[in-house]
């Protein structure tokens, strides 16, 4: 089932966005449009369906429009043309045209957000920040105490409930941001480069924690990232954006093995292949000694290869083999 559907979404910043639309339709670039009309192209004709329970990563360089597109889902950025439909439990609601009241309802109970710079209220305690969304939805203090406690336990901050957020490190602050988003029980989570402001070690740990949580929570997550390694690690599917347009959508494997343009290929060339490739990608005809599954990541294959070539099995049939040479050949290609 579709949770969020972008339907030909165009977003333009400026006073007269309609002057810029025809130029965008002629596939002019952002710079050309800005010179001609003084309007800034955010995104142009983006269409994308996000399925319930999946993690979709919007990925691109800064200025590619990924955050702009994300913010259309909860109406933080106004859409000039097109529609963004979000499932509200019963039906798909177009957040670009619904009433202010309906939009607030969606924001309170259907779509939660995590920010790159955390967006926490510094004069409040950790617990008060986590309960912020519930408070805005009108839930009484007594009622939300229990929920807040659970969420803090979930992100491992139970001991910090009564501290001011300023006393926490960046990684802990973003855990508060995550708990605040989880607390509203919203089935759709928007994550705008949530881990980019953190140092690499903490970033990796929070990525792992998010994946752990997602196994149980099964939310629909739209995740913005400029880091392809992060995108490949987290995303079930990835949408790569360039200059306000979506250039390729697919699973990490599809993108890695079949980049749609030079731009995508350049991204892929710079990433760590160990996290993406599996036995399927590095096998050659023939058979080996031990057998291994076709979906085994090559990171796990490498120690096994010391004992000789491996037979690659898919549903009980031998498909080929992996040798040290075949692996090195694929990696250096």
């Amino acid at each position, binding site marked *: 089932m579709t949770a969020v559907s972008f339907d030909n979404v165009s977003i333009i910043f400026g006073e007269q966005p309609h002057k810029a639309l025809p130029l965008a339709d002629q596939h002019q670039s952002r710079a050309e449009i800005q010179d001609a009309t003084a309007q800034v192209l955010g995104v142009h004709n983006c269409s994308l369906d996000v399925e319930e329970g999946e993690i979709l990563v919007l990925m691109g360089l800064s200025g590619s429009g990924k955050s702009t597109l994300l913010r259309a889902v*909860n109406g933080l950025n106004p859409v000039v043309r097109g529609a963004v439909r979000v499932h509200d439990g019963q039906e798909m609601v177009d957040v670009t045209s619904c009433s202010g009241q309906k939009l607030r309802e969606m924001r*309170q109970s259907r779509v939660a957000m995590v*920010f790159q710079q955390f967006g926490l*209220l510094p004069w409040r305690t950790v617990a008060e920040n986590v309960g*912020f969304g519930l408070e*805005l939805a009108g839930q009484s203090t007594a009622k939300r105490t229990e929920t807040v406690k659970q969420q803090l336990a979930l992100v491992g901050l139970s001991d910090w409930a009564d501290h001011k957020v300023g006393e926490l490190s960046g990684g802990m602050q973003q855990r508060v941001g995550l708990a605040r988003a989880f607390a509203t029980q919203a089935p759709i989570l928007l994550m705008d480069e949530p881990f980019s402001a953190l140092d690499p070690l903490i970033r990796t740990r929070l990525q792992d924690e998010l994946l752990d949580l997602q196994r149980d929570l099964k939310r629909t997550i739209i995740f913005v990232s400029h880091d392809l390694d992060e995108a490949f690690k987290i995303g079930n599917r990835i949408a790569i954006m360039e200059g306000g347009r979506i250039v390729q959508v697919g699973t990490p494997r599809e993108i890695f093995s079949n980049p749609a343009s030079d731009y995508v290929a350049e991204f892929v060339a710079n990433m760590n292949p160990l996290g993406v490739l599996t036995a399927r990608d590095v096998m050659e005809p023939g058979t080996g000694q031990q057998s291994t599954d076709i979906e085994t990541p090559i990171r796990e294959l490498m120690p096994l290869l010391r004992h000789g070539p491996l037979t690659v099995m898919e549903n009980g049939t031998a498909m080929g083999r992996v040798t040290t040479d075949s692996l090195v050949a694929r990696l250096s290609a």
Partner: protein
Amino acid sequence: MDWLTENKIPVGDVAEAAFDWAQDHGETLFDAMAFAMEALIDGILWVLQTPPPLAVVLVFVAATFALHRRWQPALLVLLGFLFILNQGYWEETTESLTLVLSACVVCMGIGVPIGIAVAHRPRLYAWMRPILDLMQTLPTFVYLIPAIVFFGIGMVPGLIATVIFVVPAPIRLTHLGISSTPKALIEAADAFGATPSQKLWKVELPSALPQIMAGLNQTIMLSLSMVVIAALVGADGLGVPVVRALNRVDTGLGFEAGLIIVVVAIMLDRALRWEGRK
């Protein structure tokens, strides 16, 4: 050159006509304002003057301690009041405190809502800034004249003159506080479905609190600086002995009263200083 001097622009006449018109047509309004302010002043004066002076002093000292949880400012307030009692200026001090407190009530009551309103409407603020500048730079004596015309002589015109001079401070500082609320916080509130009033009460006002408290401090200090001028239009208080000393060229009396004003200023500043969030 002759043409220039012969065709004088009638600034004074226009102002006079405007004040005359306001006096003719706004009598009920001015009477109502005078009545409300008089009630406020009498109320505060009654609270400060009815109990024995030492009881009032102890309440101030206790309040200072409760506010700061430190004994130093409380001790300073105690010593200040004892000095005032020693010099025999208790009655004048209570009258001046009344003027300052009522100016605070009126200025914060008007200034904070206006500051919030203009922070949300940048165009309105652009219009308002020259008016605020005018209110702060126009020599105070100039608007004492219509104040007497409208409100007679006494505490009320003194309060009016004080409010006109002081109210730009809380307006400006509230505007500064509200409009410098980090955009990220406003966005977070929006993203979680805040209504405009939730945004104001739960995000903008707490974020602007340090500036609003600075506005309160400014209001108090500026009001205190007006007590001498207020005395010229018949307001009671510490300004009266200063004016009297000036008329009689009485150096001793002038210094005495002036020093008391300084002591009151220091006490109020230390007692009400906003030390930020701990």
